[in-house]
């Protein structure tokens, strides 16, 4: 099968500082690649380059077989959607949920005007929110609910790739869990191709098919999830995995079903 997203020799510099150093990575269609690494390792920088929010100093991003250049077309922008740690960065506080969800639908002509209301309801249903949410404003929702709205907004334009940058890191553990369950359902129902970024190895384990580890701007390991968690290839991955605090009892009920 073709790769959905391919990154070749990406280098990003902030002034003198090299935040990404010749990173290459391929994501297969309908798989979730979990990107893990310590803070400052360059995860968000990679996400921003792929989404076209910053330009690399070197290297390129391919979506399917198209090279994504400096100036992206409307269609190319639509095709890669981002979800952030803080949902408020993508939700205009002065707009109702209806306005937030219709904007992309109309701009990218996903449905015609007559179909917008119905599609908005379907989107909310996808993320398990009641359609009565449509008339309300972002501040009237909890952090977890706002993240669901941000996910609905990202899904609205039917992107081929979703990038989620620490989407559960600001949430309480119980909310985090239901958010991960939502991502899992969406993954299988919509056949999403996803780059899922987290510094939390428990989260990465719950959501990923493939795991990539980043350290100081470089990828140090890319492996299928099961292999990564039981037989990591590098001592750095092993160090990360060994540092995760362990429960003193084995939890049989935990984990996503």
């Amino acid at each position, binding site marked *: 099968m073709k790769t959905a997203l391919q990154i070749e020799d990406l280098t990003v510099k902030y002034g003198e500082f090299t935040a990404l150093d010749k990173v290459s990575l391929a994501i297969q269609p309908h798989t979730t690649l979990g990107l893990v690494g*310590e803070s400052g390792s360059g995860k968000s920088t990679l996400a921003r380059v792929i989404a076209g929010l910053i330009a690399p100093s070197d290297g390129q991003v391919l979506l399917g077989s198209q090279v994504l250049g400096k100036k992206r077309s409307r269609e190319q922008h639509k095709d890669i959607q981002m979800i952030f740690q803080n949902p408020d960065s993508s939700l205009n506080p002065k707009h109702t949920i209806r306005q937030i969800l219709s904007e992309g639908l109309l701009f990218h002509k996903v449905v015609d005007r007559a179909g917008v209301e119905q599609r908005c309801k379907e989107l909310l249903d996808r993320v398990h929110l009641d359609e009565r949410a449509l008339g309300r404003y972002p501040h009237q929702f909890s952090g977890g609910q706002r993240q669901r709205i941000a996910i609905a907004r990202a899904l609205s334009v039917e992107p081929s790739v979703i990038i989620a940058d620490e989407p559960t890191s600001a949430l309480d553990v119980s909310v*985090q869990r239901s958010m991960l369950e939502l991502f899992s359902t969406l993954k299988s129902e919509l056949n999403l191709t996803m780059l899922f970024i987290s*510094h939390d190895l*428990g989260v990465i*384990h719950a959501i990923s098919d493939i795991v990539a580890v980043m350290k100081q701007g470089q990828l140090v390991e890319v492996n299928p999830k099961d292999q990564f968690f039981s037989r990591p290839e590098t001592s750095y991955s092993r160090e990360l*995995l060994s540092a995760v605090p362990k*429960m003193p009892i*084995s*939890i049989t009920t935990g984990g996503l079903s």
Partner: protein
Amino acid sequence: MMATNPILEIENLSLATSAGKSLVTNVNFSLGKGESLGLVGESGSGKSLTLRSILGLLPRGVEQVGGAIRSDVRSAMIFQDPRGALDPLCPVVRQLAEVVYYRQNVSRKASRTIALELLEMLGLPDSLKQKDRYPSQLSGGQCQRIVIAMALACKPGILLCDEPTTALDVTVQKQIIDTITRLQQELGFAMVFVTHNLAIASTMCSTLCVMKEGQIVERGESLSLLQNPQHSYTQMLIHSVLPLPELERGAGV
């Protein structure tokens, strides 16, 4: 769960906003010498406020409206955001020596010697002895070590820990936890450890209190609480822990 000869007793502690909104209700616990008690629960459950009231450091707008706190030892606190707890304009060794000087009533010269000993105890780089640095020139983990050193400079009988590793990377988190555990064994202080991470709480503490909406909904010896949780909220918290498979031995070396 009353400790024999407690060094800290909290009885029916209730806190509310000045407008009368109840924030913490009837919290009870006690702590014996050298013991560790964990307060776990999700954000907004009242963990930080409970901890702050032990220190008498309630934020503006929050008042104690009931109950009593009795303690005959000194307490010192460490926070989630170590940088925020340090003065950004003062080099760290000087800050530490300053705390030693005021808290231990020793000469300037002795305070610097004690500060340098604390640096060593916390595993901070030797280079700080020659060249002092500002908080912004240290990593988050190093700043947290300075904050712990400053707390220990008060020679506390109780160390109050408010999510001290939540903002740190997992490898740094492990180092800080190992350091706190070692120091507790060496110095024998008691601890109240606030965290939302059940794995950390149960490793660090022999007793856990589960807080929800300002109340302790369940408490018990750490292991038995995890093995046999009674309250649905405790069960939910345990259920929310994301498990990891066992690492195979010898891999990745």
